[in-house]
């Protein structure tokens, strides 16, 4: 946390919480979940989920549909009671200290509707009235880009506009911790970039953000750390780049070989870690200047290669490597 001057400066920004008198002790985490377990009838939704989010961090929860993301954040928000385990948000027990938790936790729920016949301004005012020191209505509406439709009823807003309003309402009470469930689902690219900018500003003002997503780009770009959920468990917890490193390779080169590749040609290169064939395509994984090294080796050996392509390993590769699933499909890769 900074000086008073810092606070004044920060408060000039839009949608930035007022941190005056709200110095969090940096030693204790903003969110601490300890071995959470939740079962719905016969299905275990969340199993042994532990995570610790530092104050001021943007923490991602990444996983496929049904991996337990929403249940996890509902447990953290105190909306559901865990079968086992505990959650503390800013040191508050999410079940016993609910009243205090509600003062400092802003939540954007996935697919929660609002009063259909009320307008944007009416809803922001209404939700603001529940808090001690709400953000100014007009400024907040402007910061999520809804000024032009501030007199539109909720039922007449587009999906993306409803989403943005929902985010505004999560921020209206100047929360210290914000849970955003599927932040940019349904937003067009422009609105998505606006939301990302809003999140960056939140981070600058010291607000802790828990971001549930299955959008790799969003997680990679915004999150300090990510918990990768798979079948209700934390499969990995690291920074996005740390997760990518765990995928075991940094570079990938693919090409089509018009003439056979001599055995051991690529495997013998220092930079290469793995070579596999996928139909007529050859996939080479490794590190360093892989594309250059592979190309030179192929030319020297007289192999005619077409469609040669080099890629950086991304979070989606890490996801596959760590869980055995692709993020966007139900199919199992290995």
């Amino acid at each position, binding site marked *: 946390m900074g000086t008073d001057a810092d606070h004044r400066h920060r408060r000039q920004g839009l949608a930035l919480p007022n941190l005056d008198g709200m*110095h969090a002790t940096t030693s*204790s985490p903003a969110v601490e979940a300890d071995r959470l377990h939740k079962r719905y009838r016969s299905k275990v939704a969340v199993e042994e989920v532990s995570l610790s989010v530092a104050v001021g961090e943007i923490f991602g929860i990444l996983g496929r549909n049904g991996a337990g993301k929403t249940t996890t954040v509902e447990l953290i928000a105190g909306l559901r009671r865990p079968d086992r385990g505990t959650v503390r948000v800013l040191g*508050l027990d999410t079940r016993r200290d609910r009243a205090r938790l509600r003062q400092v*936790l802003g939540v954007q*729920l996935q697919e*929660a509707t609002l009063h259909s*016949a009320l307008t944007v301004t009416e809803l922001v005012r209404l939700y603001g009235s529940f808090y001690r020191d709400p953000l100014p209505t007009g400024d907040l509406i402007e910061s999520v880009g809804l000024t032009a439709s501030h007199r539109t009823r909720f039922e007449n807003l587009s999906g993306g506009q409803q989403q943005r309003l929902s985010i505004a309402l999560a921020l209206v009470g100047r929360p210290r911790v914000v849970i955003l469930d599927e932040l940019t689902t349904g937003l067009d690219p422009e609105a998505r970039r606006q939301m990302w900018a809003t999140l960056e500003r939140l981070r600058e003002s010291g607000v802790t953000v828990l971001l549930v997503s299955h959008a790799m780009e969003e997680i990679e770009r915004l999150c300090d750390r990510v918990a990768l959920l798979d079948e209700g468990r934390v499969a990995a917890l690291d920074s996005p780049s740390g997760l990518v490193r765990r995928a075991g390779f940094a570079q990938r080169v693919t090409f089509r070989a018009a003439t056979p590749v001599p055995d051991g040609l690529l495997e013998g290169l220092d930079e290469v870690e793995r070579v596999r064939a996928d139909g007529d395509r050859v996939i080479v994984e490794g590190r360093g200047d892989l594309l250059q090294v592979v190309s030179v080796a192929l030319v020297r050996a007289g192999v005619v290669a077409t469609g040669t392509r080099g890629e950086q390993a991304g979070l989606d590769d890490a996801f596959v490597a760590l869980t055995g699933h692709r993020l966007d499909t139900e199919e199992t890769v290995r």
Partner: protein
Amino acid sequence: MTDITVHRPGPRAWAGLLICELKMVARDTAGLIVPIGLPMLILVMNASSAGRETIAHGRTAFDVYVLPLVFTMVVATTGIVNMPSFLAYYRRSGILRRLGVTPASPALVLVAQAAAGVLQIAVGIAAAWILAMLAFDANPPMRVGAALGVLALTVAAMYAVGLIVAAVSPTPNSSVAIGLSVFFALGATGGMFGGRDSLPEVITTIGQWLPFGAGSQALSAAWIGAPIEASNLIGLAAGLVFGGVVAAVFFRWD
């Protein structure tokens, strides 16, 4: 973290929520026709057949039978049909859940919704009363205090029945269907479709204990200045308690 103090939503939040609920009601045009338009229609249709002969104390059959019936209808449509459909919609759409993560309690919504309903009932009754006075020379009740007391008890009992409807209906549409069924069932036993004299005795007996019949009979008694039947009051009170208990047991926030 001892620096986090609880800020309970104050009068501004309550007033804001009430105004929002009223806007919701006012903007739901179809929802307004039933509690306000329908009773006025019944009033006009029954006015001619009720006749103008005085029954007692200068009160006509119109005053003693039609007005209590119409007022009870206003209360019943709002309490049993409109209020539960709003609650079912709030639950279904996640509004109650969303409010559950703010410092506002979802109970705040129920109270605001109930208050908005009472105002709606007041408007419906006022509209029917003005029409009755202007067009049919209606006379006020002999015992105004008793009439208001009975009306208040009827509102509470109908809301309790409405809470049962809200508690048992899985979707907003089903709550309208269940609400209307309950409304017509209570109305039929309470003399809504013709005088109680023409109903089988067993139904009349049941009807005087159920909220609709009990409410309109007790109002009739207040109008003509007669003592109010204990069975009516007990019926209304029992309806209130029963509905409250059933709703408390079965009501779900999400």
